[in-house]
């Protein structure tokens, strides 16, 4: 999941950005001077980005063009690894699964997040600050810890949820059976990330000018009309950005299934998600070249979806 908080200016708001004055000589020099601190500030981040994202990506592409065998060593193999990945049913099985996962998890998370953000913003809930903090806490729990915790809570037959379900008369529920494993994962991830999305949407809602809401109340609009017809459209850029961020995160699903696999190995297959396929191929089977190729293919798939996301946002007028 992205760890940058982006504030999007609501479209159609009454705020306008003042353009710098158009005196050529002065502006050029001031422009250069103004850029100097900015460049220094982002330099550390750019350095880290280069070291930990660009260099490994280039190295992965390089590695994917070779094949290493236990007998025979390393040799150039061109696109052979890519052919193997594209022909791997385990890999595409995983791709299909995370797409299905994303299509269900992302809208549910954002809808829930918006619902909570809206009711907290509308001030109809007492102790809203307390609840906002509590809802955010799951995001502060590291994914590994959360997955371990849920593995115990959902333990079939012995865990509290299974016993509770039996008490309710739902019979012997196995949360990690073939039918229920995906809903279980969706639930865990919704639990983890709703608070985070809610916090961003709450901030966005709070930046809507009061006059707009007050005018609507004066006009006699009901609370839900105001939320759905006025506030939601005004935070739409934030919603779109969150859809995009959550989707990319969903496509990279790794932590939760990999921890679950330690507790319920029969529930998580080799290529359960594309990231897990990469891990099991590279680290689990020692086939680092094939894993690199799979990682590049996954990056391309996510890249295509990202570009599509940007295109949608541009069409919605977000980047003028």
């Amino acid at each position: 999941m992205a760890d940058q908080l982006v504030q999007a200016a609501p479209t159609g708001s009454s705020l306008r950005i003042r353009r710098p004055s158009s005196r050529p000589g002065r502006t050029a020099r001031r422009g250069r001077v103004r850029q100097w601190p900015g460049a220094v500030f982002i330099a550390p981040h750019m350095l880290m980005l280069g070291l930990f994202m660009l260099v490994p990506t280039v190295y992965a592409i390089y590695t994917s063009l070779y094949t290493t065998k236990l007998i025979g060593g390393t040799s150039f193999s061109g696109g052979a690894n890519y052919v193997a990945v594209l022909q791997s049913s385990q890999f595409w099985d995983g791709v299909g699964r995370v797409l299905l996962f994303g299509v269900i998890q992302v809208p549910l998370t954002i809808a829930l997040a918006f619902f909570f953000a809206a009711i907290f913003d509308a001030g109809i809930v007492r102790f809203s600050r307390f609840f906002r903090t509590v809802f955010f806490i799951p995001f502060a729990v590291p994914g590994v810890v959360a997955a371990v915790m849920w593995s115990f809570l959902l333990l079939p037959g012995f865990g509290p949820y299974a016993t509770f379900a039996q008490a309710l008369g739902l019979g012997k529920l196995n949360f990690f059976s073939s039918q229920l494993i995906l809903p279980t994962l969706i639930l865990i991830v919704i639990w983890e990330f709703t608070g985070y999305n809610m916090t961003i949407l709450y901030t966005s809602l709070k930046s809507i000018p009061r006059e707009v809401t007050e005018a609507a109340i004066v006009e006699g609009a009901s609370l839900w009309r105001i939320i759905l017809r006025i506030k939601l459209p005004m935070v739409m850029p934030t919603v779109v950005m969150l859809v995009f961020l959550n989707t990319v995160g969903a496509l990279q699903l790794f932590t939760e299934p990999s921890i679950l696999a330690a507790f319920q190995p029969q529930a998580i297959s080799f290529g359960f998600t594309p990231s897990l396929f990469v891990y099991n191929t590279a680290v689990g089977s020692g086939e680092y070249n094939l894993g690199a190729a799979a990682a590049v293919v996954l990056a391309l798939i996510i890249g295509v979806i990202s570009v599509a996301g940007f295109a949608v946002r541009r069409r919605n007028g977000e980047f003028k």
Partner: protein
Amino acid sequence: MTHHSTVGGTEKVRARRRGSRKLLAVAIAAIAVAALGACSTGGAAPAKTVAHGCGHGATNLTFWGWPAGYNLVVNEFNKTHPDICVKLENAGASTAEYVKLSDALKAGSGTPDVATIEYFELPSFEITHSLVDLSKYGVSSAKNNEAPVAWSQVTQGAAQYAMPVDLGPLALFYNAKEFSDNGLTVPTTWSAFATDAAALHAKDPKLGMTNFDPESTQDVLALMQEYNAFPFTYTGGTKIGINFTGTAEMAFANYWQGLISKQLVTTAGDFSPEQWANLDSGANAARLSPAWGPVGMQLSIKNTIGDWATAQMPQAKSGGKLSGNWGGSSLAVVAGTKHAKQAAEFVKWFGGSADAWKILSGPVAGAFPAYVPLLNDSTFQARTLKITGTTTPNTVFAQAAQHMVDPQWPPIMTAAATQWTSTFAGVTKGTETLPQAFTTYQAQLVAYAKSQGFTVTTN
């Protein structure tokens, strides 16, 4: 903030503010980089370091090991060998350590002098020439004091690549009370075992004979050893034999599938809460247990403490004495070490001295020896545990330790184990049979071995 064009006097103020802003920007950037640098962990650097009683000027050895109690043994060595100082580091357990070790070997730095390596993983390191041949340092004289099955797994031809430490021979660990309550006799053959299972289930459908976890790679392979149906052959070099679809192997698969289909055995995960509950409630009347099993088991059960007895494993052929090995590890000297002689001395002492085994077989480490003098020791054999009441499990386990086939592990066990979990999932879930999984797995493993450049034989 918007900037208006200015004239005259305030220029100086602005210039000074710009200068101090520059300084601030640089300071923050420097702090940020330093903080980020400090945040990063030391990569492959292991977590815990232990060094005790080391003399001045002693040779320093790094030892990667995870089993409990190893720190006590290392302390003892350092006390009695002042010229060598061993530092124990926990670099993760099993596969986690093997990944770190092979990464360090590839990188050419950060390797330890000595590492704990389980028997099945030794060939994977031997094929990359990552282990020092200990026969050059006089360690081979320890052969007579080691169980044959352990010695065969650390040697290849004339070379010796590790020193055996512990073993995990299998035996039938059964609930004597439940057996007598249900009129069962201790089965000496697998067919008698199946008959007992059916009888037990007929009496009470809630009761099963034992647990069989299809997902537990080492457990199943140990049982296959005992059935004389070990599917791998490998004696070094470029030829691997993979045969999951052979006669004996398929007979093994059909036998267990029969018990699974009729629900005469449970398929809970090994060491899962479900398995312990089954053993404690009588839903499992017996456990096909490795020698290190009872010590851990008595921590996880309450109701049946004192009821458990040990007998020889049921045999495929009546009158046989065969057992299989599950687990156990060795100590290897890693290539690239600057102190091979001292490292060899250490590993020889660790796996093959009475002093080391006093601690290793003690309450903290609880290891079961491949060290024959201890195996044959009457006090050791007469030991009882809370869980076993007055019966003596070590008598049976010690016998089993000396009657095993020598498993020839192929150098592809990490990949084999990773793929196993996926392929055998259906058997646990009941969506496919064990023979079917064996057939699928055979094809997958042969394809993998071929892709790694090996010549594969399938019979």
